[in-house]
C-alpha cells in the first residue's frame, strides 16, 4: 500500500516568543490508501488543528501536507476549491447541511460545484441505498433526525468519490444508537469501497471502528495502535484504546 496522504514535520504555532503555543509540534503521518485512520486526543491536544490544516482551513507554520504527491499548502483559487470539494470529502460534527435544500439536493451540491461524471447518478442511488436514506432523501433537513442528517452528509461527502474523507467528530451530535449505525456504515464503506477515511474523535467507541489510531498529546504523536484485521474483535480493540486513554492521563472521562 502506498500513502495517499503524507504529512511531514507539520507545525502550527500560535503567538510569539514568550506566549508561543505549539498546537502541533512536528507531526509525521502517512495515511495509506483504503485505510481508516483515527486521531484521538484530549481537548487542546491539537487533533482538530491537525484536521483544519489538512482541510486548508488554517495554514501550518511549517512542514508539508501532500495528497497524492501534491503539496496542498501551495494550492490556490480553483485548484484549492477543487481540492476542498472533489479530492476531499468532509464529514462535519454538526452535519453542515444546507437547510433549504432537500437531502437529495444536498447530496448533489458537490456535483453542482465540481461537475460529476456520467456515473454520478448511479453512484448517488447506490449511496442512498447503502446509507438507507431512501425514505428521507427528498425531505428537508428540518424534517430529519440527527442520524439521518449525518447519513445524508456522509452521502454528500462520498458522492464525488474523493481521495480521502475527513471526518471531524462525526458522532459528536448523535445518540449512541445512531452513532453506532453511522460508524458501521463508514466501516463498510472503508472495507467494501476501499474508501480512505481520516477521523478525528474523542469517542473510544467510534474509534474502535478504525483500523489504526494515532494518539496526540501536546501537539505530538504520543502513541499508535493498529487493529489486527485478521483476529482482533472490536471489543478487544476498544479495550486497548481505553488503556491508552488512561495512560494519556485520567482515563476516558478526562478525554470526554
Amino acid at each position, binding site marked *: 500500500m502506498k500513502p495517499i496522504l503524507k504529512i511531514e514535520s507539520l507545525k502550527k504555532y500560535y503567538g510569539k516568543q514568550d506566549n508561543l503555543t505549539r498546537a502541533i509540534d512536528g507531526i509525521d503521518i502517512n495515511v495509506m490508501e483504503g485505510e481508516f485512520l483515527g486521531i484521538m486526543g484530549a481537548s487542546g491536544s491539537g487533533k482538530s488543528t491537525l484536521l483544519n490544516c489538512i482541510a486548508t482551513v488554517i495554514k501550518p507554520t511549517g512542514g508539508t501536507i501532500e495528497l497524492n504527491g501534491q503539496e496542498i499548502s501551495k494550492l490556490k483559487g480553483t485548484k484549492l476549491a477543487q481540492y*476542498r*470539494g472533489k479530492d476531499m470529502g468532509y464529514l462535519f460534527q454538526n452535519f453542515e447541511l444546507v*437547510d433549504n435544500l432537500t437531502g437529495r439536493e444536498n447530496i448533489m*451540491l*458537490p456535483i453542482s460545484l465540481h461537475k460529476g461524471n456520467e456515473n454520478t447518478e448511479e453512484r448517488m442511488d447506490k449511496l442512498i441505498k447503502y446509507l438507507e436514506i431512501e425514505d428521507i432523501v427528498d425531505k428537508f433537513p428540518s424534517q430529519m433526525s440527527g442520524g439521518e442528517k449525518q447519513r445524508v452528509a456522509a452521502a*454528500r461527502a462520498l458522492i464525488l468519490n474523493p481521495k480521502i474523507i475527513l471526518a471531524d467528530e462525526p458522532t459528536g451530535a448523535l445518540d449512541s444508537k445512531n452513532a453506532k449505525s453511522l460508524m458501521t456504515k463508514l466501516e463498510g464503506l472503508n472495507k467494501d469501497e476501499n474508501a480512505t477515511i481520516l477521523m478525528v474523535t474523542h469517542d473510544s467507541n467510534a474509534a474502535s471502528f478504525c483500523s489504526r489510531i494515532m494518539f496526540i498529546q501536546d501537539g505530538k504523536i504520543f502513541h499508535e495502535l493498529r487493529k489486527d484485521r485478521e483476529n482482533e474483535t472490536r471489543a478487544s480493540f476498544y479495550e486497548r484504546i481505553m488503556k491508552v486513554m488512561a495512560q494519556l492521563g485520567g482515563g476516558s472521562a478526562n478525554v470526554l
Partner: protein
Amino acid sequence: MFSKLVLRNTKRSQKENLLFMSSLVISIIAFYVVLSIKDQDIVRYIQTLESDAINKLVAMITALYAFTLVVLFFLIYYASKYQIERRSHELGVYMMMGMKRSKLFFMLLLEDVASSVIALVIGLPVSLLFSELMSLITVKAVGVGYLEHQSTFDLRALLLTFAGFMAIKLVSFFFISISLFRKEIGALLADSPDNIKKRKHPALYLVASFVGAVFLAGAYYLAIKGISWIDLRYMMLTLIVGLIGTFTFFWGIRFFIDKIARRKSGKKLHVFTFRQVEDTVIYKSGTMAICSLLVLSSLVCMGAGVSVFTSYDLYRGHVMDYTIRCDMPLSEDMYNAYVEAYGETPDLNTPEKIKDDLDNIGVTEMFSFIDEIRIGNVKVPEEADMEDFDVYNMDNAMELMKQYSDGFIYSGDRMYDTYPYLFRLSDYNKILQLCGKEPVVLGEGELATFIDNDVSRDQIVSGFNKVLEQRPQVTLAGKDYVLTGQVQTTPVVTDYLLSPGFALIISDEDFDQLVQDNYRSYLNAALDEDKYIDGNIFQTLEYVTNKIDSERTLIYEYESYMNNMGRQLFYLVATSYVTIYLALVFLVIANTILGVQFLMNQKKSSKRYKTLVKLGATHKIMCQSSSKQINWYFGIPIAVAAVSSFFGVRALFAGILSSRTKTSMSNLMISAAIVLIAFVLIECIYILVVKRASYKYLKTLMNPEREE
C-alpha cells in the same frame, strides 16, 4: 471610551454601507425638492400669471410633504433595520460582555444621530444644487429661459427638511430598537434564517398563483375598459381586486420557482440559487408584492408625468392671442332713446371703436389678424306661442349618438341646449382660415356643429362624426335642418371669455334672420409671429398687455393668451413635477426595500454560504449564484409591475389624462422610450449597488472557520 466606540462604529457603518447612506441622502433631497417647489423660477412665473395657482400649489406641497413623510419613513425604516440587523452578532457580544440594554440603546441612538448628521451634511448641499439645477432646466424646457434666475434657497424648506428627516429617522429607530431588544442574546448571536415554515401542498400554490392571475386580469379589464372611472365604488373594486390578485399571485409563485429549482441544469449551484430565490419568495412574498405595487405606481406615474411633459403642447389650440368682449349692439329704439336723453351717440365698445383704440396705442401693427366673431342665440319672436315654438330639437341626433358612443364616457347630454349658441358662418371661416384649415361649406338647410376643445374627447368627436354621416335632422326656430360635415373644434375665443360647450354654425343669411340683434361680438386678434420680441411669444404678450393696461381710457373686458398659458403651464408643471417626483420616490423605496431585504436575507443565510465554501465553492461561483438571485429577486416584482403598468398607463389614458395628452404616436413612443431608459438606468444602478454589496459580503465568508 464610550464616545470613541460610537465614533468608530459610525465611521465603519458609513464605509461599509453605501446603500444605507444613499437612502438617507435621497430622503433629504426628496424632502427639500418638494418643499422648495414654490421657489422654482417657473413656479414664480406662473404665480404672476395665475395667482390662484399659488394657493393650489401651497395646498399641494403640504399634502405632498405629508405623503412624502409617510412613504420615506418606510425607506428609512428598512435601510436602518438592515443597518442594525447586520450588526446583531456584534450587539449580542456587547450584551454578553455585560453592557446594559439601556446603554446599548443609548449607543445605537448616538450612532443613529451621528449618521443622520453626516447624511444632512452631505444631503442638504446636494439638495440645494439639485433644486437649482431643476429650476434652470425647467424654465429652458418650457421656453421661458429669458426669466431672471432667482435662488431656490429657502430657509423654511431647509428647516422643515431637517425636522422631517430627523423625525422619521428617530421614529424608525425606536421601532427597530423595540424589536431588537425583545430578542434573546442567543438570537442576536446566531445569524440564522427564519425558522423553516411548514410547506403546504404544491397544488395549493399553483391554485393561488392561478387565482391571483385571474384577479389581476380582472383588475386590468376594469381599468382599461374605463369601468374603474365610472365612480368611486368601481375604483375601489378595481383596487381591491388588483391588490388581492398581486398578493395571491406572489404567494403562489413559489410553485414555479420550486419547479425551476427541481429542473435539471448543468449550471453551477443551480438548485441552491433557486432555493435561495424560493426562500425569499416564501418569507417575503408580501414585501415583494408591495415592492411590485410600488414599482407599478412608479411606472404609471412616470409614464403619465413624462407623457404630460413631452406631449403637452402649450400652443395646442392656440389660434388667437387676444379676445376683447364688445358691448351688446343696441336696438334702433334703444339707440334713439340714448341720443335723445344724452344728446350724443353712445360710446360703446364696438368692434370698430376697439380697432381704432388699438391703432392709437400702436399695437395693431403687432397683429397679423384682427376681426370680430358674432355669437348669438335664436331670437324668439314676441308673438310666438312658446308651447308650440320649437327653438331647438336634436332628439334624432342624440339617439344616434347613444349608438355610436361605444358605451364609453357618454356626455352627449352636455351638447343638448334649449338655446344653442349659433356662430355666423363667415366669421367662423375667418378663424379657420387664420389657422390654415379648410372652411366650412353649408348648403341650403344645413348646419355644422362645434364642440369645445375641452369637452371634445376623441371618443365623443369620433362618435359624433359618425352621427353626422347619417345627416340627422334637427329643428331650429321651427325650421328643419340637417347636421352635416365634420365636427369643428377650433376655439372661437382666446381662453374662457366664452365657453360654448356646443354650438351650431349657421349660414350668414339664416344667422341674421334667426338671431337678429340677439348676439354679442368678440374681437379676436392674433400676434404676428414675425414681430415677436426676441422671437419669444411670452415677452411679446407681456409687451402688448402692458400697452393695453397702461392706457387708462381703455376699459375692456378682455383676455390674453397669457391667462390660457398660465393655466396650461400650471397644469403642465404641477402634473409633471408631482408625477415624476412620486415616480422617483416610489422607485427608490421599492428598490431600497428589495435590496435591503436581499442583503439581510443573505446575511441570515451566511451559514449556507459557509457550507458551500467548505465544499469547495469559489468566490466567483458564489458571486455568480448571488448575481442570479439578485436578478430574480428584483426581476419578479419588476416583471409583474411592468405587465401591470402596461394596463395601468392605458387605464390612465382612458380615464384621467385628457385628450390633450393623446397626441401623435411618435410623441408617445418618445415618452415611452424616455421612461424606459430612465427606469432601466435606475434599476441597473440599484442592482449593481446591491450586487457589489453582496459580493463584498461573500468575500468575508471565503475563509472557512476553524472548528475546534
